[in-house]
């Protein structure tokens, strides 16, 4: 090893000088590898963070999340959505956790901030901080006196929140801030380094307040939410299976006794690590990206190998001198390794810079799509990986180059008589290189075409309703409003008043009330039973008023829409079904007039059937099944507002109208439907964009690689071509002859890619949970693209060689 390092040290100094003499070669290798390594390092880091790296908390591997899992008699099951009474039951009665905290996250307005920003609040218990042990920038975290049922109005700010909304005020501790309708005393600011666990939408909390202020219905087992979860560490003597069993029994006993459970329903506990919950299914995306960049790397390796083979041919004389002076084959390997190492190390360093830019880009583009993006960075693992891949690549290039150097033939290079002939990379190797590049690029492009097609299918899918010039306004219910029948009437009237005020705005054409936007991230569903109380399923729903379908231009298929309610009292007795749901519930006839029920005492008569509409990203068989109920101000107030063409609606325009009606009203959101749509397809656009970039990059690399190999082989044949030309051969004959030979490995590569595609498809098809819709025409479209690129890459060097004077070729000028 010592001898190796000693030789390497010397060869590195030799290689440094040698590479300076071939700037074109060096720059091409560095450029190709740095871009590819940048992408690889970036995606490696993403995979490492998602799959390997521990969460940034002490004892992170033991941090667990316990959630509810429900099942019914029909074999349906779902998990991850919890009821407040179920979670509180666990919190109060469990004896298996050493530390345990419930966590509920909710968006609320920072009411005393001039912009009234929408903040994410985590309602937690003191153990939350004992488990995560955040360092504090200022003040403290919640203490034991601020636990359950203490109703302390204190708040902890994240560092980013403190900076963003509180101007980094160092004297902030003890100040008050109004979040929603509650005034809290600021007791602490977490350190900049603290990375809080994100919620299911990969959002980090802005504030932490005591659990007591969560506002959930703690007695209703029928209301479940994914925003409610928990975090804890088990006592040492308790295993996960024991904990699951104990908590499951405890939950099931109370659940089946509740009014929410039907006969045969059951509830159990599901325990996962916090890491598993945070990472979720995002590893699939990360692995897909990794396979893409590995494909890119293979193409780049093929390209650079070709360059190194040409370089080895150039270096024959130097190697022959070294061999004559006593250098052994391993010395020559070290010499080539030194050159490749210098280049790969430079490419690795530049790759780290590219990766750094990639981290920023991912943070900008995918922070809400992928978890733990904020943890991406150049850490020890990234450096180790980069170092490893740099050395591995250097060794691969040196090994492949040294394989084409015939040590025992080197002496021919030293003969002064000129009998020595330059080494040529053999035709077989050149064909293999081209075929590999074509095969890999075609395979990658075929894969990219599938991903792009699936993404475009979502992006370009017609929504089925009008999104143009329609806004959604969401207003928080006034503080202190209850859910009693009297209060609901009052709230209904208030929403009517708001509607009328909004209609007075000059840009507003029409307004309807609804409890949620027509499309949004996530899904809320509610079960329906038939007239015999038999459960028919759980479907997406909305509560809307009579103007809703007009504003969204959602066509009516049968029956009628809701009639304007003159009576503000809570009166829900009608239901409108989507076409798909109507077909499912009443397959053999019209659903109009049928009765379904939300609860046994609440019959709903089907009065209309509307066209399906598409919710991007949701499977069609589920996404199209939805129903509509008449509006009632149960939840926060929502309004779909149709504007005149090109009209705008802002928070500033709307807020005075609301405050005129009720000083306690707060705007949660004003957003156009186009923006809602754009948010939902953003992930797909991002996927398509990244895939297109990856595809173009692989096409470019493959084109450059094919050009490089063919340029080299054409140069090798210049003398022969010169003879043909001098004997009177027409250029088109020579071109055809050379093109035919050059395109042979291209076709071979395509055949290989077709073969590999079939193998991969067969392997993937065996994965039951992996569904790929393959459009053969889409995949075949890759073939002419690849052929065109290969043709151009072949044509250019040939054309350059045959259009010059034959004598130049014969003289090897």
């Amino acid at each position, binding site marked *: 090893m010592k*001898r190796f390092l000693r030789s390497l040290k010397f060869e590195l*100094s*030799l290689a440094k000088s040698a590479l300076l003499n071939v700037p074109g070669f060096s720059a091409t290798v560095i450029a190709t590898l740095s871009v590819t390594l940048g992408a690889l390092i970036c995606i490696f880091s993403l995979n490492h963070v998602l799959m390997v790296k521990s969460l940034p908390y002490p004892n992170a591997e033991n941090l667990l999340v316990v959630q509810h899992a429900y099942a019914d008699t029909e074999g349906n099951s779902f998990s991850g959505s919890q009821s407040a009474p179920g979670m509180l039951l666990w919190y109060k009665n469990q004896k298996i956790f050493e530390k345990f905290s419930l966590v509920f996250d909710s968006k609320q307005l920072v009411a005393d901030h001039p912009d009234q920003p929408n903040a994410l609040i985590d309602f937690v218990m003191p153990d939350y901080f004992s488990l995560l042990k955040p360092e504090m920038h200022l003040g403290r975290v919640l203490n034991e006196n601020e636990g359950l049922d203490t109703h302390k109005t204190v708040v902890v700010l994240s560092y980013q929140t403190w900076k963003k909304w509180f101007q980094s005020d160092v004297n902030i501790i003890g100040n008050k801030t109004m979040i929603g309708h509650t005034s809290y005393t600021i007791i602490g600011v977490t350190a900049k380094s603290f990375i809080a666990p994100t919620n299911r939408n990969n959002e980090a909390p802005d504030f932490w307040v005591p659990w007591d202020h969560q506002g959930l219905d703690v007695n209703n087992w029928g209301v479940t939410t994914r925003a409610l979860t928990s975090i804890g560490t088990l006592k040492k003597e308790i295993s996960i299976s024991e904990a699951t069993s104990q908590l499951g029994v405890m939950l099931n006993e109370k659940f089946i006794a509740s009014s929410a459970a039907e006969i045969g329903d059951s509830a159990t506990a599901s325990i996962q690590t916090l890491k598993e919950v945070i990472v979720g299914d995002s590893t699939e995306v990360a692995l897909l990206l990794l396979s893409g960049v590995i494909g890119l790397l293979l193409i780049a390796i093929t390209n650079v190998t070709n360059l190194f083979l040409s370089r080895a041919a150039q270096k024959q004389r130097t190697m022959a001198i*070294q061999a*004559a*002076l006593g250098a*052994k084959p391993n010395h020559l390997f070290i010499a080539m390794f030194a050159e490749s190492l210098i280049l790969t190390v430079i490419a690795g360093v530049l790759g780290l810079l590219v990766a750094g830019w990639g981290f920023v880009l991912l943070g900008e583009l995918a922070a809400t799509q992928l978890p733990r993006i904020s943890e991406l960075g150049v850490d020890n693992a990234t450096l180790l990986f980069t170092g490893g891949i740099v050395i591995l690549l250097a060794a691969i290039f040196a090994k492949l180059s040294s394989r084409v150097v015939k040590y025992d033939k080197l*002496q021919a290079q030293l003969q*002064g008589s000129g009998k020595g002939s330059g080494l040529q990379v053999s035709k077989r190797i050149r064909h293999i290189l081209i075929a590999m590049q074509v095969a890999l690029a075609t395979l990658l492009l075929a894969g990219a075409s599938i991903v792009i097609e699936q993404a475009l299918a979502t992006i370009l899918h017609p929504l089925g309703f009008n999104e143009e010039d329609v806004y959604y306004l969401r207003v928080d219910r006034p503080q202190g409003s209850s859910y009693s029948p009297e209060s609901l009437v009052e709230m209904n009237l208030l929403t009517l008043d708001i509607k009328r005020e909004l209609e007075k705005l000059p840009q507003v054409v029409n307004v309807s009330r609804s409890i949620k936007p027509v499309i949004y991230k996530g899904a809320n569903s509610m079960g329906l039973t038939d007239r015999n109380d038999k459960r028919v399923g759980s479907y997406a729903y909305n509560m809307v008023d009579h103007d809703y379908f007009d504003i969204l231009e959602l066509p009516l298929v049968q029956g009628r829409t809701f009639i304007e309610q003159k009576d503000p009292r809570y009166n829900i007795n009608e239901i409108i079904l989507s076409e798909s749901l109507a077909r499912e519930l009443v397959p053999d006839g019209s659903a109009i007039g049928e009765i379904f029920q939300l609860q046994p005492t609440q019959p709903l008569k089907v009065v209309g059937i509307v066209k399906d509409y598409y919710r991007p990203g949701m499977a069609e068989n589920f996404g199209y099944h939805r129903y509509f109920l008449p509006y009632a101000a149960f939840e926060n107030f929502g309004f779909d507002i149709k504007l005149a063409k090109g009209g705008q609606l802002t928070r500033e325009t709307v807020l005075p109208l609301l405050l005129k009606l009720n000083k306690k009203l707060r705007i949660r959101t004003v957003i156009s439907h186009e923006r809602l749509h754009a948010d939902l397809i953003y992930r797909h656009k991002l996927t398509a964009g990244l895939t297109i970039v990856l595809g173009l990059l692989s096409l470019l690399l493959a084109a450059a690689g094919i050009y490089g190999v063919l340029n080299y082989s054409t140069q090798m044949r210049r003398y022969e071509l010169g003879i043909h030309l001098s004997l009177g051969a027409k250029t088109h004959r020579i071109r055809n002859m050379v093109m035919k030979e050059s395109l042979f490995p291209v076709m071979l590569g395509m055949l290989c890619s077709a073969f590999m595609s079939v193998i991969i498809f067969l392997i993937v098809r065996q994965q039951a949970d992996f569904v790929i819709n393959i459009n053969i025409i889409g995949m075949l479209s890759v073939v002419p693209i690849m052929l065109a690129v290969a043709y151009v890459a072949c044509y250019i060097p040939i054309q350059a060689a045959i259009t010059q004077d034959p004598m130049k070729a014969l003289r090897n000028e």
Partner: protein
Amino acid sequence: MTIENVTPMKPVDTDISKKVIIEMKNLTKVFSTESIETHALRGVDLVIYNQDYISISGPSGCGKSTLLSLLGLLDSPTSGQYFIDGLDVSNLTINHRAEIRNSHIGFVFQAFNLIDELSVFDNVALPLRYREPAMSAADIKDEVLSSLEKVNMSHRCDHKPNQLSGGQQQRIAIARALVGSPSILLVDEPTGNLDSKNGDAVMAMLAKLNDEGMTICMVTHDLRYADMAKRKLHLLDGLIADEYSADEFISNDATAQEAL
């Protein structure tokens, strides 16, 4: 001289008391392609003694370069035996041959074959870098400077080959050949790329080295320089056709003049 009367000659003017450095016995070299066999050497017998100065000459294609390649262990013979310092090197492994090249043989080429990217010092030091066990940096420096002083080029240590004249480059090449204290210098057309003045200087240097005890075997087309050697081999069609000692050559020359 015709081909018919060519017969391998026994070495003449040999001093048996001298140590044998190289011995070749019935050495052949055949280059084969799919359809053609070219017999480059057809049974060469050659003994080289310590402090010999041999020139090998002959027409193009006679096998000079092939013989030099075999002498320098740059190529393997097809048949026959080859000894260097008594060691049979006919069938050694690649690595073993490299070691012997490194320690026993110094090369001087027509085209100098210096590495452009290296300084004069590093070019000369190159054989020592491959030496096993490894030499210390200080020892390498001493050896290199000493070798450069022998060719009066120590003042050009830091120059690159392309900053030197052809004659200077060849002197550097000689310094590199000498640096490892080899048993023999194999010199291939040392003046082929030089003008007559530099060619004469290089040949004078080789003569001086031989006078100091270095064994030299040189391939050259130039009969004027070939005559400077103590032993002159004439190669024809892969065989040693004639060998003369310097004394014999002078004597033959005198006889010829008398005849005239």
